[in-house]
Structures are given as structure tokens and as C-alpha cells.
């Protein structure tokens, strides 16, 4: 009685807590307003965006007031939170697949063409033309005083609505010529086969790269002009000489300062290739030309520079830093020059007040400069686009037009400016792709900002001057693959995995193959209707139920001693107990009970898990990019996987290597558990301390780990040095990178520790008492009592460790991005890349099912073996 009262009491407390905690959706809905959903990044930019959006809604309301046939808008800037939809487009892809995409998305320009080629975005030229015609008609018509004649709300520079506020600019049509060429080119996708070209996004912000240099260091080494001012390099040859001269080593031969590191900052092979006059794609977009001789020249240059600095491994470990912005070795004066993007200005202005920084156009090879070429840079940035399945396309365009106007830019820039100042931080606005607006931003917030030091203004001016000469990455349906290919080619070359020539040829052919797959897809039947899928699922379920019933209830007179997957799997002796049970009423009575108890899982499986699993099997036989109907291609994916894809085998090898971590993790976890079940004071405190690493969020922990593993200033090598060992390069060395991750895994063994503690505490003291009366020592007790009694837990950890290891993902995703030289490209990470980055879901599904088979076999084997060594109390 008291017990049930207690339960009722607790339930009441719990329910009221839940009621109190539950969030309410507070969203008032205007019945007649069109809702525009907008996917945007988080942070201060979102606040700024909301300020602009309120203005948009206000203008639309005004127009509606004057002309009720015009719509009112409500913009919901939700659906964000993925900082970067290109790095991790899962969120966006799911909303597309679910038929519920946002109406406007803010997307990396570089990926626009890749997605547009698969039909993900609406071409925008017709919208633009309509606007331009309307605008010129209106200007010719000359009826500026009639608000109904306005082409769109806010088009006319009206009287500022309040005196003292800044005057608000017009909202004009969008013309391609208003943008920097590099920014506009990137969003125009030209179909290589039909020659059709359309813009698929409206460029918004921009970022380009220049050479930044530490004036003090240049002066120190005598690289000065006639006035004694630092003189930056203009040619690659000068750059090389300066880089080597300014590099210093300590007595132990470790790098202390480096003049210049080719790939530190933001250059990649793209930039060097262009500087050397190379092209990565042919003009018609049909051929990948990564093996262009000019690109080879560039890669040779980069490789030799790395070699002269002491090799890529050494240089990489020097540049790997504690924290991205603050402890930037350039800001700390440890790197004299780097080529980097305009985004560094924000942290430079914040942390680099002591740094005497200058900027110059990136150098060219001497031969190219003599041809009269202007130095070049590389521009990236984001754009607004409309998904092709968006519901409110016209409204979406009106929002894009507004967000691309100078008025919106002003509102956003001022809002952001205020945010930064209120936090006591300097504000350096990013560049924008629109020429005129960019100049306005510069004058208003940089040149006209008295709080910003002159040196930063000068640097920013160099960045802006280079915008006209900035190129964008090749516009192709295989942009992401090409991007990875040029990165890996450089990685391989500077680490001497392959010769520069070999690396370029190898990756060239692999990207070309992918391009051909996209341009000339193999024949196959598209699957457009999925009704049969549910029939199939239903039939399979019914068949399984019938089969189980016949088998387990003994209705079939088939011999039961043969192979049975179920028995094999559970590790139980055989199925006889069930068969026998079917005869006795005691056991038969358990049928109903068993099914009732298992019902939550059975329902959950049928509703939530079984369907998706079957779906992924079907998909593994298809070419499926999520954006278009799947095309049945038979065994193509599997065939390609086993015979053509080196990275598949590489990732599998890497993953299998990580299995070493399982026994180590178990040993450490068990050791900790034994230690923490001793009779000591303050056991709660100790347990909590040991458990801490499992609690710290991965993002925070990864920053710390990068520092711990830093070969020079890191904690780990510091400790090793104390005992006279020179530590390895850890994350920068392909031979130790996996060990570093295993070590990191051990450190979070506290997570498994609590299972061990529960297991240890489950062993009755009476066994130990009996044993010690019999004269067994501690070791014998451990060996003959603890270990056997723990076997169910050992078994559990083994199985879960196996499954977990084969799905290692986060470390690679956050810390290493698969490098160096693909040494941490794990299976699940490669699978993720295929599924969401290369838009190759069918292939990913095939990989998943192959992994499934491997793990299944290994697990079943373990289960089978477990009969010999796992001791269950209930089996006596």
C-alpha cells in the first residue's frame, strides 16, 4: 500500500515537472500572410538578419495596405543551426527528401553548381529579367509618386521614416554585372552537354586571399626597400628564398620560426595551380585537367618548398595550433608570411594589436609575371538560392531581392556592428560580392572607423583591390570530389606518398570517372513509385512470422539440430529448450508473456526500424542522389566498391586497425573500475573525476586534444621529454595518427567504467569470503571469481566495442577530416562523405550493407565462441 502510494506520489511529481518544463511554441500566425522559411546560419549574423527581415515584412505590409491584392509576408528564419550546410548538408538534404525544404537557403557558392546540376535549385535568370523589365518600364513611365506603380515594396528611396536615422537605399533589380566576376561565375552552372547556362544563386558575401606578412620579421632579415620598409615577395622565387632565410631552428633542430608554409592559411593546390597558369577543368566542362603541366609545376614547387623546410610532417606539426584564431602562429610572430582569407581580419583586429602586419598580392612565378600577368587571388563566399521543391518561389525571390539590396546590407551591417561593440570587440565586416556595396562597407566601417588601426585598414584595402582579380573554383557537378582530389594530391605529394606527377594523374582519373558517371549515367530503370515497397515489407513481415511460428512451435517436423542463425547468434546451446517448452504447458504459458514483454521493441522495430533497413537494401542496388528518383542499377555499386574503389579498402583497413583499441579500452576501464570499487574515502569524488573526460563535450575536448598532441608545445610530448623520449608527431604522422585516436579513446574509458562498476558490485561478497576462507590470495580471487563472474560484461563490451569501432565517425569528422594522407579515413566517415557530400546515397547504402555483413559475421562468431567462456548464472 505504502509502496503504491510512493509510486503515485513520484509519478505526480514527475508529471508536474514535465508540464512545467515543456516548451510552448509561441508563434502567432497571420492567416493571410505567406510564410517564407529561410535556412540561415546561427550567431550574431542571425540577429542581424532578423532586423533586416523585419524591414522586409514591414515593406510588404505597407504595399499590402495600399494594394490589398499584394501579399503580406512572414519570414521564419528557423531551420538553421548547421553552421555550414556544405560540410554537413544532412539537415538540408533531409528536408529536401522529405519534400519540406526551406524557401530560401543560404548556401556555399562553391557547392551551388554541384547541387544545381542535380536539379536541387531553381534557375534565377527569369526572375532577374522580370525585375529588370519592370524597373525600366517604371523608370520610363515616370510615376514615382504613385505607390501602386512601384515595381516592388521599398523600391523607391523614400523619405527616411524617422529623422536622424540613416537614409535607406533603394531596392533595385539584380544585374549580373554588379558583382565581382569571380563571385558571379561561381553560381552560373553550364550544362556541359546541352550548353545551357543559368544562374542558380545570388552571391552575397565574399572572401578572397592575399599574402599577409609580419613587417617586423621582414625588417629583421633585411628584406627592405630603399626606405627601410618591409618589402614583400613578388615572385615565387623570392618567396622561396625569403621563406628559407626566415626559418630558424633551435638547438634540437626543431622549427622555431618559419618564413612561409605553402599550405598554411588558405591556398591549397587550386591557388598555386592558377598562379602557375593551370586550369583544373577544360572549357567545355567535360574533361578534368588536374594533370595540367602548369599544375604539375605548381605542385613540384610546393613539394620542394616543403622538403627544404624539413618535410611536410615537421612543418605540419609546427603549424598545428592550440586554438584556431587566438594562438595563430602568425599572430604570435612565429610565421613570417602566409596566404590567407579575409576572414582572418576579425581575429587579427582582435588579437593582433601588437602585430605589425602588412598585406600584398599573392606572388606569381617569375615567368608568369614576366608574361605581364596580374597577380591573382581566389574568391569564395555564400549565395542565396531557392530549392526547386520550395513552395513559395515568388515570395522567396522577393526576399532574396530584398536581402541582396543595399538597404538590407546596411541594416545587417549596423546590427552586427552594434553586437560587436556591445561585447567590446572590434568589428571588421566581411566583403560582399556586389562591387558597389563592398566599397560602401569599406568606407563606412573600415576606412571610416577611427577605432581601427591604420595597419588593418591598409591590409583590408589590399584584400579589396584583389577582388577584381579573384577566381572561383571550377563550376562542375563534381566540385566536392575535385576539391578533395586536389587536396589529397597535394597531401600525397608533400608527404611523398606519390610523386607529384603520379598523384595528379591518379586523382585526375578518379574525378574524371565520377564526372562521366554524372554526365553519362548508366542506363537503368528509375523508381518513381514506392507503393510496392510497403507491400513487400508487409509480405516479408508476414512470412517471417509464419516461419518463426512453424519453427519454434515445433509444428514443423524438420530436424532442429541443423544450422539455425538465431541460435548461432544468441550463443545459446540450441533451440531445444524452446521446442521442449512448446510441449510443456509451463513453458507454453510463457509465450504470451514473452511476446507482451517484448512488444515495445517489436512495435518499434516494425514501425521505425525495419522499413528504413529494407529501404537501404533496395537503395544499395540503385544510383540514388536523394534529389532525383533512384535508378535501379543492379550490382553496380557492389562491383565498383570491390574492384575500383581504393579508398573503400583503405577506409576498411583503417577501421580494422582501430580494433586494437577494444581490448585496451576494456583493460583500462576494468582497471579503473577495480580501483574505484576499493574501500577508499570520497569514492564519489574519485569516480566523478575519472568520469569527467566522458562528459566534456566533444567539440571542446577536440580543441584540447589538438593541443595535447601538438608535437612541440603539446602536453603529451612534454611529458615524454621528461623521461627522455622524443615524442612522435601524433596527428600529423600517418603512422601515429590512429594511435593518437586510440589513446584519446582510452582516456574516455571512464564511460565504460560504470558498466564494470555495476558488474563488480553485482558479484556477491559471499564468493570472496568463501574463497578467502579456502586460502585463496587476491590474484587467485581475481582470476577465479571476478573474471568468470564478469564474463557477461566482458562479452557485452567486446560486442559493443566491435560495433562501435566499425562506426567510428566523430573523431575523424571533427579532428582530422580523414588526414594525414587518408590515414584516419574511417569507414563510417567515408560512407558519410559518399552519402551526403558526394550525393551518392546508393553507394553509401551498399557500403553500409557490406559493413553490416562483416560485423554480423564477427559478432555471430563471438556469440558462438561465447558459449565456451561466458558464464551465466542462470545456466548453472
Amino acid at each position: 500500500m505504502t509502496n503504491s502510494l510512493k509510486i503515485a506520489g513520484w509519478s505526480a511529481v514527475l508529471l508536474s515537472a514535465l508540464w512545467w518544463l515543456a516548451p510552448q511554441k509561441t508563434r502567432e500566425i497571420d492567416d493571410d500572410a505567406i510564410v517564407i522559411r529561410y535556412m540561415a546560419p546561427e550567431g550574431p549574423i542571425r540577429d542581424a538578419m532578423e532586423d533586416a527581415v523585419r524591414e522586409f515584412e514591414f515593406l510588404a505590409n505597407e504595399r499590402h495596405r495600399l494594394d490589398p491584392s499584394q501579399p503580406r509576408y512572414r519570414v521564419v528564419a528557423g531551420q538553421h543551426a548547421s553552421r555550414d550546410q556544405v560540410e554537413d548538408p544532412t539537415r538540408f538534404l533531409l528536408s529536401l527528401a522529405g519534400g519540406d525544404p526551406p524557401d530560401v537557403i543560404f548556401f556555399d557558392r562553391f557547392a551551388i553548381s554541384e547541387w544545381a546540376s542535380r536539379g536541387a535549385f531553381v534557375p534565377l535568370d527569369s526572375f532577374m529579367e522580370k525585375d529588370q523589365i519592370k524597373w525600366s518600364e517604371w523608370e520610363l513611365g515616370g510615376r514615382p509618386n504613385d505607390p501602386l506603380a512601384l515595381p516592388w515594396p521599398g523600391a523607391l528611396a523614400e523619405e527616411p521614416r524617422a529623422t536622424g536615422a540613416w537614409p535607406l537605399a533603394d531596392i533595385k533589380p539584380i544585374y549580373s554585372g554588379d558583382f565581382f566576376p569571380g563571385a558571379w561565375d561561381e553560381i552560373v552552372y553550364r550544362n556541359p552537354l546541352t550548353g545551357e547556362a543559368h544562374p542558380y544563386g545570388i552571391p552575397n558575401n565574399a572572401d578572397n586571399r592575399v599574402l599577409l606578412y609580419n613587417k617586423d620579421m621582414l625588417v629583421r632579415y633585411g628584406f627592405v626597400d630603399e626606405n627601410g620598409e618591409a618589402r614583400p615577395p613578388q615572385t615565387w622565387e623570392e618567396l622561396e628564398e625569403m621563406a628559407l632565410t626566415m626559418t630558424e631552428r633551435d638547438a634540437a633542430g626543431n622549427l622555431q620560426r618559419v618564413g612561409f608554409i605553402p599550405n598554411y592559411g588558405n591556398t591549397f593546390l587550386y591557388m598555386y595551380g592558377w598562379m602557375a597558369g593551370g586550369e583544373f577543368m577544360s572549357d567545355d566542362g567535360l574533361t578534368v585537367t588536374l594533370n595540367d603541366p602548369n599544375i604539375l609545376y605548381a605542385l613540384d614547387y610546393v613539394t620542394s618548398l616543403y622538403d627544404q623546410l624539413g618535410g611536410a610532417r615537421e612543418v605540419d606539426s609546427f603549424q598545428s595550433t592550440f586554438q584556431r584564431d587566438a594562438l595563430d602562429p602568425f599572430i604570435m610572430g612565429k610565421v613570417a608570411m602566409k596566404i590567407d582569407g579575409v576572414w582572418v581580419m576579425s581575429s587579427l583586429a582582435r588579437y593582433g594589436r601588437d602585430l605589425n602586419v602588412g598585406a600584398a598580392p599573392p606572388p606569381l612565378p617569375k615567368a608568369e609575371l614576366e608574361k605581364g600577368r596580374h597577380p591573382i587571388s581566389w574568391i569564395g563566399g555564400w549565395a542565396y538560392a531557392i530549392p526547386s521543391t520550395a513552395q513559395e518561389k515568388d515570395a522567396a525571390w522577393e526576399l532574396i531581392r530584398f536581402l541582396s539590396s543595399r538597404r538590407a546590407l546596411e541594416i545587417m551591417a549596423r546590427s552586427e556592428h552594434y553586437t560587436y561593440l556591445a561585447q567590446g570587440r572590434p568589428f571588421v565586416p566581411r566583403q560582399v560580392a556586389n562591387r558597389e556595396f563592398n566599397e560602401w562597407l569599406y568606407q563606412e566601417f573600415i576606412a571610416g572607423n577611427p577605432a581601427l588601426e591604420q595597419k588593418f585598414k591598409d591590409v583590408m584595402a589590399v584584400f579589396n583591390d584583389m577582388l577584381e582579380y579573384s577566381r572561383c573554383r571550377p563550376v562542375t557537378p563534381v566540385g566536392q570530389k575535385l576539391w578533395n582530389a586536389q587536396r589529397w594530391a597535394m597531401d600525397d605529394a608533400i608527404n611523398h606518398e606519390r610523386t607529384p606527377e603520379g598523384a595528379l594523374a591518379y586523382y585526375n582519373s578518379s574525378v574524371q570517372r565520377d564526372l562521366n558517371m554524372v554526365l553519362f549515367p548508366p542506363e537503368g530503370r528509375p523508381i518513381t513509385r514506392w507503393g510496392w515497397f510497403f507491400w513487400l515489407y508487409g509480405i516479408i513481415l508476414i512470412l517471417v512470422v509464419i516461419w518463426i511460428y512453424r519453427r519454434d512451435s515445433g509444428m514443423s517436423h524438420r530436424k532442429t539440430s541443423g544450422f539455425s542463425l538465431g541460435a548461432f547468434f544468441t550463443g545459446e546451446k540450441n533451440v531445444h529448450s524452446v521446442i521442449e517448452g512448446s510441449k510443456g504447458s509451463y513453458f507454453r504459458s510463457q509465450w504470451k508473456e514473452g511476446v507482451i514483454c517484448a512488444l515495445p521493441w517489436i512495435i518499434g522495430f516494425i514501425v521505425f526500424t525495419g522499413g528504413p533497413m529494407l529501404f537501404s537494401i533496395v537503395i544499395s542496388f540503385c544510383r540514388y542522389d536523394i534529389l532525383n528518383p533512384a535508378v535501379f542499377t543492379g550490382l553496380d555499386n557492389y562491383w565498383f566498391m570491390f574492384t575500383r574503389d581504393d579508398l573503400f579498402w583503405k577506409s576498411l583497413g583503417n577501421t580494422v586497425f582501430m580494433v586494437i583499441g577494444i581490448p585496451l579500452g576494456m583493460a583500462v576501464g576494468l582497471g579503473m573500475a577495480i580501483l574505484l570499487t576499493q574501500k577508499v574515502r570520497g569514492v564519489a569524488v574519485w569516480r566523478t573525476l575519472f568520469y569527467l573526460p566522458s562528459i566534456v563535450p566533444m567539440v571542446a575536448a577536440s580543441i584540447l586534444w589538438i593541443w595535447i598532441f601538438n608535437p612541440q608545445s603539446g602536453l603529451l610530448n612534454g611529458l615524454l621529454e621528461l623521461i627522455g623520449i622524443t615524442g612522435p608527431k601524433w596527428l600529423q604522422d600517418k603512422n601515429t595518427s590512429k594511435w593518437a585516436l586510440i589513446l584519446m579513446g582510452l582516456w574516455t574509458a571512464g564511460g565504460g567504467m560504470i558498466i564494470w562498476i555495476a558488474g563488480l558490485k553485482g558479484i556477491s561478497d559471499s564468493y570472496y569470503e568463501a574463497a578467502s576462507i579456502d586460502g585463496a590470495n587476491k590474484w587467485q580471487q581475481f582470476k577465479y571469481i571476478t573474471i568468470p563472474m564478469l564474463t557477461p560484461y566482458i562479452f557485452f563490451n567486446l560486442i559493443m566495442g566491435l560495433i562501435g569501432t566499425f562506426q567510428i565517425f566523430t573523431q575523424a569528422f571533427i579532428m582530422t577530416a580523414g588526414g594525414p594522407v587518408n590515414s584516419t579515413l574511417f569507414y563510417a566517415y567515408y560512407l558519410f562523405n559518399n552519402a551526403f557530400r558526394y550525393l551518392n546515397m546508393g553507394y553509401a547504402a551498399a557500403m553500409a550493407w557490406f559493413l553490416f555483413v562483416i560485423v554480423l559475421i564477427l559478432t555471430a562468431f563471438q556469440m558462438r565462441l561465447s558459449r565456451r567462456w561466458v558464464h551465466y548464472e542462470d545456466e548453472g
Partner: protein
Amino acid sequence: MALRPLQMDDKPASAGRGLSAHKARDFARILMIYGLLIGGAAVFSIPFVWMIGTSLKVDREMFGETITLLPQTPHPADVSPYLDKHYFTVPRSATAERIEPWVISRINDLGLPEEQRLLQDRDIASHLFPGVYRKLMDIMPAALWKLPDDELRIEVTRRIDETLITEVFRAIYRPLMLGSIRVRSFDLQEQEMTTGRNLSDIWTIEGSVKSEIHDVMEATGPGGVLSYDFNGNAKPALQLTTTLDLPFEADRLFRIQLSILPDDSWHRLDFQFERNGALYKSMRPAFMGDNQAMVVTLQEYGPEDKSHSGKIRLWYACREVDRGPEYESRPNHVKVSIHMSESSQLQAWWAKGYRNYRGALNYIPFGRYVATSAFLVILNIVGTIFSCSLVAYAFARLQWPGRQFSFALMMATMMIPPQVTMIPYFLIIKHLGWYNTLNPLWVISFFGNAFNIFLLRQFMKGIPRDLEDAARIDGCNFLQVYWHVIMPLIKPTLACIAIFTFMGVWNDFMGPLIYLADQPLYPLSLGLYALNVQEGGNYGMMMAGSFLMTLPVVIIFFFAQKYFIQGVTLTGMKG
């Protein structure tokens, strides 16, 4: 930490041995255990200490020649403006000693920047030396340092010029500067109240402290350096007051913005304003740390403060505290005052620690997010514990057709990487109408989770069957057996599962990201992400946010771990 007394472990087996040998062995054992514990704790608590340390740092501590785990001590200054003597590390090398007199005489020859007239400190040259020395180390080639005295002196002197001195001086000069004042009405009417006026005419100073405003034309535009000297005052405080003639009605006043360049003194500022006969006081103080230009926005406590919107709270909300004829009541007038009071060393520490946490809490509606996370955690734990224990009971103990097959299938579901089942799963959720609700984030837990079921099954198979049979014979049905026999026995494992579930839900980022669109529904894990994406990085704030997120887990773990040792009552059951 005191070691435990030695009365434990008096095993009969060791009774025969000599008492002292026994004691010594026990002592060694205890020593080893504590040694391991302390060593392990040191290794395993590094990330936490580091996270807390970083969360207490200001921007400029995050770079420098050496990385320190712990933040630097704040130095509350009595006299301002002043020179920050801690900014550059004082060099302690023979070379530094050698060149110091030359550098100082060179600085004296060249003269100091104009700002120095406001300094009370007259020993400026020697305070500049560490900075100049570091600058010289940067620009002089290594070979030159080995030159004989007279030549080195020439080289050093040649490189020190006015630009270099100004640069070093500016780096350590700490003035408290007042800048422009802007007002804004609810109709977005905005005006700068300081245009064409001297700051010394705008502000009047009250208080016992010796203080004065010096008008300067600085790089930051027209400003006023407020000099003050707190020495010789028991409770030093001063108040700056100004009355503004607004271009609009005083009740239309939306916000007042004050531009301030704080010195690095960590003194406390409180704000208040009077209008229409009422006095409004800021609900939180500002501290003058980190010498970076900032804007203080005063606005009346209003709907924006009450709502749980995702807007970053950058303003200082002010509440009406008093009303009366003594307060400014002319229409179109507002009286603004800044109250400054001295911080003790302790208060300075507190202010510094509070800084990033305040920032993080202002950045996101923390309370709302925590409530949502707690909501999800409770439902998930309840759901997981009931469904998983029930299903595990079916798998471990009951005989039913399809048991082995189902178990194999359940294990198989864990072996499929979630990436490939995500899309159809999402479609199911959408068709259930659960998109953009919290349902997909908790309902699933009521259908069991393979990992936990497997763990519980393993545990249950370790329980002797006799107990259960006895209960059955006593007439318990299967649910009673489950509830009265099995549940009490698996408590330690359930505690484990509760912890795992708690952590999984608390830290889950992908789930909310995929299924939620509206910001009011965000749990903390997703909401906190806003802190990570600010351009230029804000590590202090990010770590403060991470710490706040981690803290509840630590506390819960601390209190939950005692349940691991409960429920071990198998004594004498078997063998």
C-alpha cells in the same frame, strides 16, 4: 587528504602472520591505491580544469609566448590613466640588463607620446622597456645581439624611433575614455547627443575622489579621458551625471547608448537614468575589464527581456525603482548617471570570472533551453528504463517463439550505420506529423534501445533462476516477477543506463538539428551551438557555455553513482 585508518581488511587468512608485516603491507597497499587515484584524477580532470580556466580568461590571455592553464590575476588600479605593467613579460636575461640603460636614455632623448601628460606615474621609460625589448627581439637579426657593447648600442639606438615608442606606449596605456552618447526613440529616431560638444562640458562629476575629464581628439574621435585617483579614500566612488535634451518625447525613449573605452581596472560601473519623474536603475553592473571599445545600451526592462526569444541580450535592462518630484521630469529630458566604485582584488576576480559566463547567458535564452533539455531527459530516462528492462526480461528469461530470431535482428539494427537509414526514418517521422515537435526526440525511447536491452539481458542472465522460480511458485505472475524480483536486482545496471541515457540526450546534437525548426523548441545542445559560430572566435564564452552545459551532468553523476552499489543482495543465494 588523510589516509584511511588501518583497521580494514582484517582477513582471517592473514591472522597468523606477524602484525607489523601485515600493517606494512596494508599501508603499502593503501598508499598505492591513493597514488593511483590521485594520478588518475590528475590525468582525467585536465580537460575540465582547462575548460574552466579558459572560461575565465579575457581575449588577450589566449595568445602569448606561453600557454597557461589558469587565467592571470586581474589588477584593479587605483589611479587612472595608467600603464599596464603586466602586459609585456619583464625580461630577465643578461642581454636585457645590458641594453636597459641605453634604451631608457634613448626613450628619454626621443620624448614620449603626448598622452603621457595625463599619467601620474613619472617612471614611464622603465615601464616601456619590456615592450621595447620584445620589439627589438622581433626586428633585430640574431647575429647583431652578439656584437660588442658600443656597436650593439648603436644598433639598438638606431632601431628605436618615435613610431616604435608610440606603438609600445599605446599597447600598455590604459585610459578610461568616454565617447559619444546616442539616443533612440521607439520610432527608430536616432540622434548623437555629443556632436560638436566637449565631453567635459557634458558630464559633471560628483564624489569625494579627485577626478577630472580631459578632452582629447583621439583616434577614436572626440572623447574625454576620465582621470581619477582612488588613493586616500576609504570607500572611493564617483558619479558622472548629464542631462540630455532629447529630440523627442521622453516616453518615446527606447535606448541610450554610451560609448566607453574601459581601462583595465576592473572597477564597477552602475547605470541609472531619470525621466518623467521616475528613476531607473540598471539590473546588472558593468566591469571595466579588457581595454576594448564598447557600447553600453540602457533600455527599460520590457517584453524583450521577458520573452524567451533567441535574440542576443546586449543591452542593460533598467527597472523603475523610485518615483518622485526630485527626479528629472521635464518633457524631452533625460538625466543619465554613471556610478563608479572601486573593486577590491576579490571583486576584480569575481568580475573577471563572471565576464564570459554573463556573455554566454546573454547570448542565448539559457533557462528555456535547459528546461527543454530537462524535459527530454526525464521522458527518455523513464521510457528507456521501462521499455528496455521489460524487453530485456523477455529476451533473458522468457521462452517465446521468435525469441532468438528477434534477438539476432535487434543486434543487427545496431550494425547498420545510421547515415543510410536516416532518410526513410525522417520520412516516417514526417508522416506521423512529428516534424518540428519534440516527439521524435523522446517517443522512440519507449520502444527500447538495442544497446541497453543487450546490456540488461547480459545482467539478467547473471541472476540465478531460483529466485524467480520461487516467486512463481508463490503465485506471482510474470509482471509481478518482473516488478518485484527482477527490477530490484537490476538497479545498479539501471543506474548505468539512466546515466548513459541522460548523457546521450543531454549532448544529442544531430537529433534536434534534424527534427526541429523552431528556435523556441531547441534543447541546450543545439542552442549552445550559437556560441561556437561567432566570427573571430570567442573561446572564453564558448568554454563558459560548455562548462555550464557540463556542470549538471557532473552533479547528477556525483549523486547518482551511489546507486551503483545498491541492490547487491545475492548473498547466500547460490553455491
